[in-house]
Every structure is written in C-alpha cells, then in structure tokens.
C-alpha cells in the first residue's frame, strides 16, 4: 500500500485504463446465466451493460466476464429473448 507521501495531489489518476485492475465481480450477489438457445444475438445486453462485462467475439455474444460483472441484472431485464423465453437469467451466487 502507498504512503501518503507517494500520492498524487488531488487524487488524480494519471494512468489511463487503470480501472481494468479493479475487479468489481466480487460485489455480485446474483449472476447472469446465458441461455444460448434463446439468444437472437441482438447485442442489447452488450449495449446496456454498464461494466463492459458482456463478451463479444466477431460480433457475437459469447457469455459474460465475471471478473467485472456486478450482477446488476440490466442485461437480463433488457434481453428480448426468443418467443417469450429470456436468453439471460439471473441466479443467486453460490447456488
């Protein structure tokens, strides 16, 4: 841990992208589970995710990055699913 003499005045973070080192996934109490058979690849989950925790490879949703997902459930709420069945469901952690 840094001493006070080593800090930047004003608490300015001089390094870009350093929040990648702050893994917020440990805050999660509910985790999103992807159900590929109900997914229409609309990417609404990717668009709405506040933590960029939806993995997209070659334009396709491939699952979640649980290092950063806080379990807010916005993706599951926005997911249109297929024929009334959600492609993202929230489940309690540790179940």
């Amino acid at each position: 841990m840094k001493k006070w003499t080593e800090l930047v005045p004003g608490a300015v973070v001089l390094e870009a992208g350093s929040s990648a080192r702050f893994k917020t996934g440990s805050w999660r109490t509910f985790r999103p589970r992807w159900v590929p058979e109900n997914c229409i690849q609309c990417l609404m989950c990717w668009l709405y995710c506040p933590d960029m925790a939806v993995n997209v490879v070659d334009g396709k949703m491939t699952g979640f990055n649980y290092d950063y997902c806080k379990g807010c459930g916005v993706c599951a709420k926005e997911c249109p699913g297929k024929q009334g069945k959600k492609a993202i469901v929230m489940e309690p952690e540790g179940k």
Partner: protein
Amino acid sequence: MGKVVAVTGNEAVANALRQADPDVCSLYPITPQTDIVQRFSSFVANGQVQTELLNAESEHSAMSAAIGAAAGGGRVITATSSQGLALMWEMLHIASGMNLPIIMPLVNRALSAPLNIHGDHSDGMGARDTGWVQLWSENAQEAYDNTIMAFRIGEHLEIRLPVMVCMDGFIVSHSIARMEYLGDDEVKNFIGPYQKVNPLLDLEHPKSFGPLILTDLYHEYKRLQHEIMGRVKNVVLQVSDEFAKQSGRKYGLFESYRLEDADIALVILNSAAGTSKDVIDELRDKGIKAGLLKPRLFRPFPYAEIGQALRHLKAVCVMDRADSFGGYGPMFMEISSALYQADGEGRRPKLINKIYGLGGRDYMPGDARKVLLELNEISKGAPLGAVKEYMGVRE
C-alpha cells in the same frame, strides 16, 4: 503605473479579475456580489478579456462548472455571497480536494433565516473547513490587492489550492473609497501565464479526476491535503513580498496596529478594523496602551505567529461578526487555541469575546471605545464577566 481612483470594493475586485484575464468565469448573481460578475460580464462583452463566460443555473452549478473548467486546465474564477456560498458547500470540498486553484471573491453577507442581505462573516466562517485558502480584506484596496495575489498563491505549484477573497458586503462592496490600481501590464506580469497541472484536456495523456478512494487510502489523501495546506503560509509571505516590491503595499499573515508595546488589544477582521484603529489612536493620546491585530490569512490559520504577537498583552477582546451557536465566536476559538499553544512562560492575556455587527448592524467608534475601555479595566484587575457577549444588543 498605478492609478488613483475612487471606486467601490466590487468595482475594484472586478477590475482585478479583468486584469487577471481568466480562461473561464462561471457565475450566478447574488447580492451583494452581483455587481462583480455584472461588471465582469461587460468586460467579456466588450472584448476586454478573453474569458469564456458561463451563466450557471445556481451557485452549486457555478462551482461545479468552475471545477470542470479548472480540471480541464483553465484559469477559473467565480464569485459569490451568503446563500450562494452555502449552496456551493459540497462542491467547495471537491475543488480543494482536487487541488484546483479556482479564485473566488466572497462578498461577506449574513445567512438566512431571517433573510438579510447585509454584511457579516457567517458565510465565510461557515466555509472554514472546506480546504480553501481564505484571505480577508479591510477595504477596497486590500480586496483588490488580495484578489491579484490570490492568483499567484492559489496557482503556486507547491500548493494548487482554491482561494476565497473576503470583503464586507455593502460596507466595502458598495462604498466608494480611494484606492490605487496597478497597471494592466504590471498585473499581467505579476500573475504570469497560467501553468497547467494534469489538465484533463491534454488528450495525449488521458487521466481521471474524482476516483473512489475508500478505507485503504482516503486517510492518506487527507494527510496529504493537510501537508499542502501547511505550505500555504510561506507561499503567502513570498507572494506578498513580491507584491510589495511591485506596489509598495506590504502585507503579512496579519496586520499588527500599535500592538508591540500595547497592554490591551482587539482582534478584529475586515472593515471594522479600520474603525477600531481610529479609536485606538484616540485612546493612545489619552495614555491607554491599546493595539489591534487584524487577521488576513484565516485559512490556514497562523497559530504560532498570532500567538506570539498576542501573548505579551494583559487583556484581549476577540471581535466576531459571526456566531457559532452553542460555541464561542469562530475567531475567538482560533485565538484561544493560538494563545494556549503560545509559549507565554505561564503568562497569557485575559480573553473575552464580543459578537458584533450581525446582519450588517453598524459598528461605530463608540462600540470600539466601549470594548477597549472594558479591556482597560480588565487589564487593571477588574473581574471578568461572561466570556462571550452580544455587543450593542437591545436588552
């Protein structure tokens, strides 16, 4: 070259701001400060400054915009009074916590309720713990000089702190007095170009302001803030020395008036100090050894220096134009602390506290005379009454 003029305190301060030519001014009007930003807006409209003017929808927004502009890398000003300062309160802490040297004249005015527009110090005293540097000014000349010096002090690379320049509402802000302007070029050279520190608009070096800092580091950041505040005193003295060379007007951390050989003294801020000095002269002529100490730098408070300047006295009255309800007056608390820590070899002046002039109530020579004569009796052994009393209140 200097130019002698007869102007109001507000006009003097507005001209200091014009001469500083800031990058951004975010503003919201409030009596008795309105006159400053109104005049400054004319300077912008007339092309006399290059400033970007932002009309905010409240003082909270004005300070927020000032913070954004200062973090962006600009020299930034705003101005306020009373309720406006109170509305800015949470943002004041953010400006200082981010080390942003925003310069803000504060035209001191009473706080509601009851509603009052006149001059007292309850607004500025309420901002005591916000981490801003506070300079207090007796008259238009001091307000002008302090405003110019505030840029050099706040922008100094060792501190980078926001500075509040205080003067009494109406008594100084709206009264015409003789004072002397420096030339535009003199001020420009004295203040110098703005030096950016970690500007957000430096796109080659992206950075973040305002991170979340929890139990692991917050305590350390506050320790750093305390350290930086500790450097202010020397910066103020250094800038004031340079200013004296430029202008011929000398300023310290506080002003001592006939204090060195005095037995009794008043500690008093701003315009009322001027009235008191006349009465001190009058009592000196009658053989009463009276003096006065007028603080200039209130935050950070120069405890050691003020304790040293007062410790030889027999009796001191600390005059407060603000009250801390349930406590002593705010200045009294500082002076008590300063004297308790001063090395007086067991000797310490008797200390009393008078609350005066709230809501702009006049402070007259008779008021100063009455207090000084009471101190004179105390210095000869008269018993002390209540520590804190309201002066001139109808009973």
